[in-house]
């Protein structure tokens, strides 16, 4: 079960939940499951990058998750360019 953290700006779409655990083999499936459960997240997640265990990944969709994976959603910054 990956641990998913929601920032304060996202909690308005999660019914106030700051953290949930979720079973997903990869980021791709995780995002699908999240949006299914919290439809309001769809727009936000589209514009956020994913941090897996502290590592910010720009192209994370097919990254595998483990039961210990900690997930954060991070504003997309343009690393060094914009």
């Amino acid at each position, binding site marked *: 079960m990956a641990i998913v953290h929601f920032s304060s700006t996202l909690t*308005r779409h999660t019914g106030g939940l700051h953290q949930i655990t979720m079973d997903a083999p990869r980021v791709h499936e995780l995002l699908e499951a999240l949006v299914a459960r919290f439809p309001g997240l769809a727009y936000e997640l589209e514009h956020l990058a994913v941090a897996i265990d502290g590592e910010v990944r720009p192209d994370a969709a097919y990254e595998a998750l483990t039961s210990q994976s900690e997930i954060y959603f991070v504003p997309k910054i343009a690393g060094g360019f914009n």
Partner: protein
Amino acid sequence: MSERIFTAVGTRPVRHDGVDKVTGRANYGADLSLPGMLHGVVVRSPHAHARIRSIDTQAAAAVPGVKGILTGKDFALTNAKLGLGEGAMDLKDMSDNLLAREKALYHGHAVAAVVATSVTAAQEAARLVQVDYDVLEPVLSVDRAMEADAPILHESMVTQAHPAVEPAGSTNVAGRMELKRGDIEAGFKEADIIVERVFRTPTSHQGYIEPHACVVRVNEDGRINIWTTTQGPFLVRDATAAILGLDAANLKVTPSEIGGGFGGKIPVYLEPLAVLLARMTQRPVKMVMTRDEVFRASGPTSATKVRLKMGARKDGTIVAASASLYYEAGAYRGSPSGAGAMCMLAPYSVPNFFIEAYDVVVNKPKVAAYRAPGSPMAALATESVIDEIAQTLGLDQIEMRLQNAVKEGDRAPYGPPYGPIGFRQVLEAVRNSAHWKSPVAPGIGRGLACGFWFNAGMSSSATVTLGSDGSAAVVTGNPDIGGTRVAQAQMVAEELGIPVERVRPIVADTDTAGFTEITAGSRTCYATGMAVIDASRDVREQLRGRAAKIWGVPLDETRWEHGSVAPVNPSAERTALTVSELASKLAKTGGPIIGHAAVNPPMAGPAFAAHICDLEVDRETGRSRVVRYTAIQDAGKAVHPSYVEGQMQGGASQGIGWALNEEYIYSANGVMENAGFLDYRMPVASDLPMIDTIIVEVPHPAHPYGVRGVGEVPIVPPLGAVANAMSHATGLRFTELPLSPPRVLERITQGS
């Protein structure tokens, strides 16, 4: 991570491209000429904000030597977006920026392009292009842009907000984002001291010495060759293809040597125009910007307004912060305000905060990246307010920062927890530095400031080929702006155990190199470096196979030992074979060896820096001089320490210039009045002291050597370091840059 003993990494070899660069042989953007080449010149708007009614090119076309004229009508705006790493680039905006269609959105905005047999003829014709403008009121500040009655730059603009908000009519606010944690009201209630100030920084330019330049040739088969000075040849290829609706496979981009970029040579300004002109005339076309054009029509960085309120306990513990960041994007959306928001409190553990960041369009050139985009202006606010709190509470500047400094496991303000980071080590290095320990001379102010930058990862490729003489060539697609060739050669040398002089690093064109993202984001040594290391290890694996073949043993009975392959079970016949020995037998053992690698690593480990500035102020004239300066930074691992120091020194001096004198000076009607090196006052050699450096090395675990990026974070601390030094020298708080003599004298005279 166990301590690794390096042989090539960490040394200071002479760069491979050095001889060409000290003898004048190296070719930069404007250095190529082709037979039959024509010259293109851009016609630019004399108004900061104007509707284009019509363009009459008849008189211009009649100038002898003129071969063609291009206006916005000649290519359609595309709706495509180009995914580039994390940021999708809006090609419609980029296309409109290349040649204005409906409106000219800043003074210097391109409206037409002329191509002729000489620069002189093209310039003459450009003057004769008649544009009928309906002149509109220009919007020149975020304050004006956000007023209810402000002229609107883009009628269709909708605020892109995170969290989402309902669109509310026409706006110049292109974007808004929030970051928050905890309960800021409760946090401020815990505070014994609250400081709130508003900071302003001006539009400033990267100031690279080489103007934008390119040459384009269209071949008979439709293949298009672009030679250009750019931070990203693949980006030039893909953006040009998308904007013009061409097949990228038909474009080949060859990067020239690049005379500085600092982020400013990421966008395309000339290349698509030159392609169109070359197709129109079926002749090679060269386009070179003048310095005036570089200032007016490339991409400087945002002017900003940043409000920061911070509360702390008597012991210096920061308990709450709230901030609003307003960054000018220039004529099209895309300021680095979001990055500013994320960096602003990144060095400190703040339990309760609320940050909002606005991206605001104004009638100025569209901003481009500039070294740690967005972070320096935000750090100015944070570091000035912390300085003031420490001063007011009578706390030591380093102790207060150490007390709040983030460490491994602390959550970054933008969400995830930090891995191993070096901020505390950086602060300790400040405390132990000769500079910090030295007494502050009378009449001098000493300022300290810190800074944070993410450092990018993203896609990179590398090829390493082994020659039969045991030398190696490494091919990548990253233009070398500051010594990345030699660093990559060091990595190959490190992995293969051969001398760095035996490695030839090559920056290749887009047909030759595997796809590689731009030289930016402090990523070249990190991400492309990882590809280079992996490609070298691929060569090593193949060499093991060759040794196995020679010895007639299975692969697993061989192992790599620095610079050679050794048998797991040595015997008289089977002794270790060096790379050179194996290389001499390549043909016999299966042919040439080429190692490949392609990577897309996560973002590099965050980099932290701290700078110390001693400033002397002439209280009668407001003029100041930096008399001593030290830059301290966590590099993870310095591959070539001289070029790491160089990045630190260069970033420091750019930041000093930004803090003291550099600014775009605008007239009321939006014309930049100082578009030249005479009056856009970048530091000259006599303005600066030696810039001392201290490299801290806290390895980044995701990189085989521990490398973090180094190129950007050094420009983050200087604004605050200089402003804090000025405050300590004068006893006054300074919140508006630049700290030019008139501004400083005015404050001293007011004495408040």
